[in-house]
């Protein structure tokens, strides 16, 4: 019998509980087919290589919650007070210092403040939307980068390349070459040097000017430096019970397990609850 993943508790009276309702089944929706298999074959024929992209909303929420838990420090929210000093008069602080010491802001508070200020500076809510942290690591506002890149050369004095070419010392004069040349003379010429099979192709070093521009690049913001997620390869999925490849999916909740043993272990605690 298929009960659409809903567990019915035996009761005499009917209550209007949240959690399930009769809905018209209008064809195979990509997300719901795994959740609500009309028959076993349809569940079996669901697309094989499941990537993060086509998880159900419930699974995504679960993953997000788990990652948040993993990123936290310590099991739960704790507050450990500073041990009180006895017999010491409270030291005097300047107003700035007092403000900083008393601040109970966490990193995420500061980060939200920063994003808000940044959005204001860039003018308009559109930019703010782009910088939202949630899932937009790749969405970097393109216009902003151009602006910063364009503004940098004016800030740094341009060296005149050519003069510095011969300067091989590591002396700390104002504008030395960014990269110093070779330390030792190249090895003696060999008749085989011109053999096309032995030739190695080394890309040219960028010019001093180019390097200087790179070095003068202003620091990126917190979210801009985060590695960008690229969907090149299918995501690996693992058995939630033992950690082997997740080759089988629980028909009820879509959790991955490896084989029958683990599936049974999982079934014992597989509850598809409303809002889980």
């Amino acid at each position: 019998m298929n009960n659409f993943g809903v567990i019915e508790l035996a009761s005499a009276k009917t209550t209007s509980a949240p959690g399930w309702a009769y809905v018209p089944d209008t064809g195979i929706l990509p997300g719901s087919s795994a959740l609500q298999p009309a028959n076993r074959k349809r569940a079996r024929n669901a697309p094989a290589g499941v990537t993060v992209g086509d998880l159900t909303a419930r699974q995504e929420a679960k993953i997000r919650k788990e990652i948040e838990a993993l990123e936290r420090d310590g099991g739960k929210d704790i507050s450990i007070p500073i041990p009180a000093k006895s017999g010491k008069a409270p030291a005097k602080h300047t107003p700035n210092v007092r403000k900083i010491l008393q601040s109970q802001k966490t990193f995420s508070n500061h980060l939200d403040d920063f994003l808000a200020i940044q959005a204001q500076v860039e003018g308009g809510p559109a930019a703010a939307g782009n910088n939202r942290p949630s899932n937009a690591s790749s969405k970097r506002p393109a216009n902003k980068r151009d602006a910063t890149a364009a503004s940098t050369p004016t800030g740094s004095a341009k060296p005149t390349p050519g003069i510095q070419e011969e300067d091989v010392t590591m002396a700390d004069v104002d504008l030395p070459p960014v990269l110093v040349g070779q330390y030792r003379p190249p090895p003696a010429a060999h008749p085989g040097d011109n053999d096309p099979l032995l030739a190695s192709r080394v890309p040219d070093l960028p010019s001093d000017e180019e390097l200087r521009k790179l070095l003068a690049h202003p620091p990126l913001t917190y979210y801009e430096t985060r590695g960008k997620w690229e969907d090149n390869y299918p995501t690996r999925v693992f058995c939630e019970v033992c950690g082997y490849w997740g080759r089988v999916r629980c028909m009820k909740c879509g959790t991955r397990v490896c084989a029958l043993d683990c599936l049974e272990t999982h079934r014992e605690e597989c509850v598809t609850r409303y809002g889980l």
Partner: protein
Amino acid sequence: MAGGRKPKVAAPARPQNTLVLDNGAWTLKAGLVCGGSIPEPRVIPNCIARDRSRKIYVASELDKCRDFSEIQFRRPVEKGYLVNWEAQKEIWDQELFGDKAQFKCDPSETRLMLTEQPNALPVLQTNCDQIVFEEYGFSSYYRGIGSTFNAYHDLQSLFRTPKDALTAANTPAEIMLVVDSGFSHTTITPLLGGRPLHSAIRRIDIGGKFLTNYMARLISLRHFDMRNDLYIVNEMKEASCYVSADFKSDLERTWKGTRGEKREDYVSGAGIVKDYVLPDFHTRHKGILREYDPAQHAKSRKLAATGHSEEDVLTLRNERFTVPELIFRPSDVGMRQPGLADAIQQSLHELPIGLWPGLLANIVVVGGSSLFDGFIQRLQKELVQLVPDDCIVRVARPADPITNTWYGAANMANHPNIEKVVVTKQEYEENGSAWIARKFSTGLLTP
């Protein structure tokens, strides 16, 4: 490294003492560099802890703690950045300036060199500058990105590059790529002459904390609940985890098989499975890692049935390598971030291709999470597969990746470069904190 550590005669730093402070989230590394000689840094836990009996330990007092079960921590450094100054000041006051401090320094006659993680929030940097000058009153101060200090080492001896005897180690290193895998996250910083290439700095939000939490979750699912014993889990992680060279086959060998199947590798342990004897804090204060012994297990099961079991043993199977695997594949837990090798490639793609050979041949890995066995071999292997064939990929890990940044900063304290970047208290009072923030962010570039 030894060559780089030699005192430079040419640089008489104006304040004779420099307090070098690598303020990490897990430990802070501190030492006083006096006129050229570099001592061993002290490595101090950067936390305030409370144990089960609600006794509170500040920083190095943690050594006195006997029972680490259900211990809780409060850390002033969050996600790599110094956030909570109330706690940090308490720890600094006790460890650096208190009565029990091993080295005494008077801030008004001392220069402070402080490390920070790249891409910090400006408001946190300003807070830091204000505290340093207004609360402690250091005579001069430099705050720099931690990774950049790694350039002040003899890089080529780390890679064992054959070289002429005459060429002295030149610091800062011309070109290198620093991977810093710490407690909070893993950052990738390409350096050119000790200066960071800001446009190519990348970060993955996976560090030791994330791995410990993940391991605690796995053990709680498979054995018993250890989510409140992260300290013990962390020790277990440090003792047992390794980065797998061949993930697929390791996973295959630790699988128990389908129902009723007795796989030989599973029964014998296949050389991967280990037992971890948990500390009970009465007779045993440290956990012990030992070889998996099936016979022993049968015996102890009998003992447990009669209620005479003397030790709690955890059998670690694929937990040993699936945990550090997250650094290379964050998507294994559904995190939408690239692995370390991919992130390095993304960083390289921001730079002109002419710099690639230099950066790839000089990759240095620092930070506590790089201590896993097989870390650098795996990184090298993955990078070779990603980058052009012509590029030589060399990955090295210094002898002690945890204090390497500190030693680099100490070397810089004796290097003439420091005089160009340092800010004095007087300058701070004249120009204000915004000016300082600008000066530090331009770093060595200012003429």
